[in-house]
């Protein structure tokens, strides 16, 4: 089981004092947050990709490469990489390069992006979102597995004898997750390839994601990658903690009330009841997230959103201390209890290399 954090890289005014970080400050803060994640023993740092303010992360591999150079163990991932508006050839190249530089500590989460104008800015149409995600990934999948690719599709200029370089490290492509909020097509795609499926899980009631993940697990088995229980599932989560739970509520409420996604809507109390957001003591967060496997089955990766809505860097780093030192160690133990031996661990490059070697052995 892997634990980590994911960020959308928003530049948001701190509602408690009206200060807004500069883009430079926010970019440097993201690096500090990633390094802190490694320091407190988390496994994964995942970075979003956006091409519009108030977000600063337009160039994820640049930032992840910089972080790779300053970390030793942290797996670097995305949340998400835009499979719709990026050229799949460039994704193949960028992430293979990052994979080499990070000695394999890289995986990628594909997403479509839901901001209408971004599509035309990159010459695409949001109404083709699903079709783009399907076709572009089909090409990316081949570019990482076949040395020379002849290809023709609907959205991209054709390729004849194209070789994407560098080739994936040890001949094993980065592990891929597919993220989706509601589209069965994307769950189907993840199941078809035997890739991971990530449910953002933070903005809506868990019942919705339970149905979607249930569908993905069923289809994973249908396509012959293993049993439904062996499908590779990741979940998002969100927490704010203080030793005393009322202090956590008092500190977080002004950020909640003004948050770009749910501010001015339901009360903090209603929202924490309806969604996985947990505001309270570390023990409350442990209890909430330890129960997730009862709803979703044993899974592989839990990511927390910790640094949005204008929370200052100092607060975020304190939250990561609590998460890494008090919450995750307990969750690791809880998740290990009665976990069936045939349920895969979270994907790593080493495990993928081993699996590839075993496959070659079998086919000999």
């Amino acid at each position, binding site marked *: 089981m892997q634990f980590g954090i994911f960020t959308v890289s928003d530049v948001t005014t701190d509602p408690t004092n009206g200060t807004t970080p500069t883009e430079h400050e926010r970019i440097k803060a993201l690096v500090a947050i990633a390094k802190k994640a490694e320091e407190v023993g988390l496994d994964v740092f995942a970075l979003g990709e956006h091409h519009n303010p108030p977000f600063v992360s337009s160039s994820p591999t640049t930032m992840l490469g910089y972080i790779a150079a300053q970390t030793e163990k942290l797996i670097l991932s995305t949340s998400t990489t835009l499979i719709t508006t990026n050229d799949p050839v460039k994704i193949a190249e960028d992430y293979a390069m990052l994979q080499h530089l990070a000695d394999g500590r890289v995986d990628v989460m594909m997403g479509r992006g839901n901001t209408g104008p971004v599509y035309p800015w990159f010459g695409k149409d949001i109404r083709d979102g699903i*079709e783009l995600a*399907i*076709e572009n990934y*089909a*090409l990316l999948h081949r570019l990482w597995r076949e040395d020379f690719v002849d*290809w*023709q*599709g*609907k959205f991209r200029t054709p390729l004849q004898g194209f070789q994407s370089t560098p080739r994936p490290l040890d001949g094993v492509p980065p592990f891929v997750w597919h993220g989706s909020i509601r589209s*069965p*097509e994307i*769950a*189907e*795609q993840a*199941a*078809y*390839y035997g890739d991971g499926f990530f449910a953002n899980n933070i*903005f*809506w*009631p868990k019942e*919705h994601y339970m*149905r*979607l993940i249930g*569908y993905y697990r069923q289809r994973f088995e249908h396509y012959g990658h293993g049993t439904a229980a062996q499908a590779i599932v990741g979940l998002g989560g969100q927490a704010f903690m203080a030793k005393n739970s009322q202090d956590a509520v008092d500190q977080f409420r002004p950020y909640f009330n003004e948050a770009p*996604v*749910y*501010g*001015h*809507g*339901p009360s903090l109390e*209603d*929202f924490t009841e*309806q969604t996985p957001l947990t505001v309270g003591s570390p023990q409350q967060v442990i209890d909430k997230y330890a129960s997730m496997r009862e709803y979703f089955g044993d899974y592989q990766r839990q990511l927390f959103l910790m640094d949005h809505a204008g929370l200052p860097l100092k607060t975020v780093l304190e939250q990561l201390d609590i998460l890494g030192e008090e919450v995750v160690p307990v969750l690791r133990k809880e998740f290990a209890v009665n976990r069936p031996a045939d349920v895969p661990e979270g994907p790593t490059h080493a495990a993928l290399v081993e699996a590839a070697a075993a496959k070659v052995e079998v086919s000999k």
Partner: protein
Amino acid sequence: MTKRIAVITAGLSQPSSTRLLADRLVAAVQRRLVEKGVDVEFEVHELRDTAQDVTNNLLTGFANAKLDAVIQSVTTADGLIAVTPIFTTSYSGLFKSFIDVIDPQALADMPVLIGATGGSERHSLALDYAMRPLFTYLHANTVPTGVYAASSDWGNGADAATSSLPERIERAAGELAALVETSDRSSRIIDPFALPAGFSPVGGFGAQ
């Protein structure tokens, strides 16, 4: 099998003339169906009771359990009676907000009776230039007669040359009852994971 008709009424005051019109429409439709030997039950939803929940849904993108129950009741019914007050030339903001949080495909082929209330009979055409196009866009099956009730209609009626409110209610009720009688919407099984026809996880043209 018992038919199920959902009723949404967007009146804001208590008591509300919009609810009063809805109740009259319900009674008339029930009478017509009973005459045909069709069992029917009605689920009446005052949108005022979910006004906060509708606003929260607009902001967060999800319906809480209370609102979701109303949406399910409406979208899986055999027929719908939708009544709104006319505010500033059109359906009320609450009525439209409720429609906006429903999946736009979810009312396809729904038999609908539209009704509206207003202070003056001069707004009666709002039924035909606002309500009717709204349900047409949603591919609902709206009956030809819409029922508008101005304040004066609750007395003798403002205009002796037009049919009275009870007559309009009866005509509209007969039209809705005929459609509900053959509707199978409430017994349909909806697959939320149905993939579009022809979908392939590797794409179509050239992607093999």
